[in-house]
């Protein structure tokens, strides 16, 4: 009996100390890890969309609660004014979720650019939505409130050839993104003001 109690105590104490230590390390590295993930996963798309801004949008970011979801917004400062925000929305492509980074001018609602962050589309076909600059470039200058549709569906977007489903996913993702952008716009405008230089 004493043996069993001793075993329970030793393993229990060891587990508790290890758990406590790990919780400490986790909380002290959490902010750093979040930044690294933003930098390497979303960073390239954000940098491209907010090209020419005078601040570091990866640092100047804020969060807005959208119901249960927390959404991150990255601020771009142009001519000393925080007029642009980049944020991520999701569409459903051929093989699952497509992450879309969208940059919008909050004064005119015009899109500054669009980039794909994460996807699991077919390499060489659907993946060109991410890699083909021509496909991405056509969104620049469109209004975020446009009814995004590919041309075969009677819309204005040139689909990636051979990847209509992916292109439709991008379009429906943009529509969904504009919905939450409009819903949260008052908060976005309010919070972005804080980043004026």
């Amino acid at each position: 009996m004493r043996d069993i109690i001793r075993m329970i105590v030793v393993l229990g104490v060891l587990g508790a100390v290890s758990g406590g230590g790990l919780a400490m390390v986790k909380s002290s590295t959490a902010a750093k890890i979040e930044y690294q993930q933003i930098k390497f996963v979303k960073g390239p798309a954000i940098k491209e969309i907010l090209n020419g801004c005078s601040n570091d949008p990866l640092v100047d970011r804020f969060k807005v609660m959208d119901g249960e979801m927390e959404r991150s917004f990255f601020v771009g400062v142009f001519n000393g004014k925080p007029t642009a925000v980049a944020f991520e929305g999701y569409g459903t492509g051929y093989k699952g979720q497509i992450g879309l980074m969208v940059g919008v001018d909050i004064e005119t609602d015009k899109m500054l650019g669009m980039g794909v962050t994460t996807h699991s589309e077919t390499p060489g076909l659907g993946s060109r939505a991410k890699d083909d600059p021509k496909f991405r470039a056509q969104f620049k200058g469109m209004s975020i409130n446009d009814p995004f549709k590919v041309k075969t569906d009677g819309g204005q977007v040139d689909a990636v050839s051979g990847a209509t489903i992916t292109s439709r996913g991008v379009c429906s993702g943009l529509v969904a993104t504009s919905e939450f952008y409009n819903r949260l716009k008052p908060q976005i405008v309010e919070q972005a003001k804080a980043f004026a230089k």
Partner: protein
Amino acid sequence: MSDTSLVKEFTKGLWKEIPPFRLVLGICPTLACSKAFNNGFGMGVALTFVLVCSNILVSAIRKYIPSKIRVPCFIVVVATFVVIVELVMQAYTYPLFLQLGIFIPLIVVNCIPLGRAEAFAYKNGVAASAADGLGLGIGYTLSLSFLGSLREIFGVGTWNGIQIFGADFQPFTFMVEAPGAFVCLGLLLGLMNLAGKK
């Protein structure tokens, strides 16, 4: 514990008991993480940290661990340090973390830390265990770096990302594929056995 035996515990890991070649332990990450020099080196450093810390801790608390539950205790200790390494790598060397991926958490079931805890740290003092862990860890790092360098130089034509051969070099891609890892490791093992034979 005298100084000479500490040195002996340390140096045995560098040649006599160099993990992948002499003990033939920890082969899974040796094969998977030696595609390039920096992968091998990063894996080696991660393992060295886990090995030294777990050896020191196991040795320090060995008198309190009942022998019936020593293996679960070792696993808790090793797993703790592995998660620390994982978090630190995510925070500071994110690209390397992405490349090594699953092999970092898999250090928990790697035979080296568990084997050293059982075979050495549970029976020896803190200083000797630290020396043992450091020696084996450095030996492992050197082996993986060397294997990674060989495969990267011949398979891609670069070392640590720097071009070695001119643009005309035809990379021997077989070397960076899985079978290349086996062939490379086998040849090195053979050479080491040849060199070790008196």
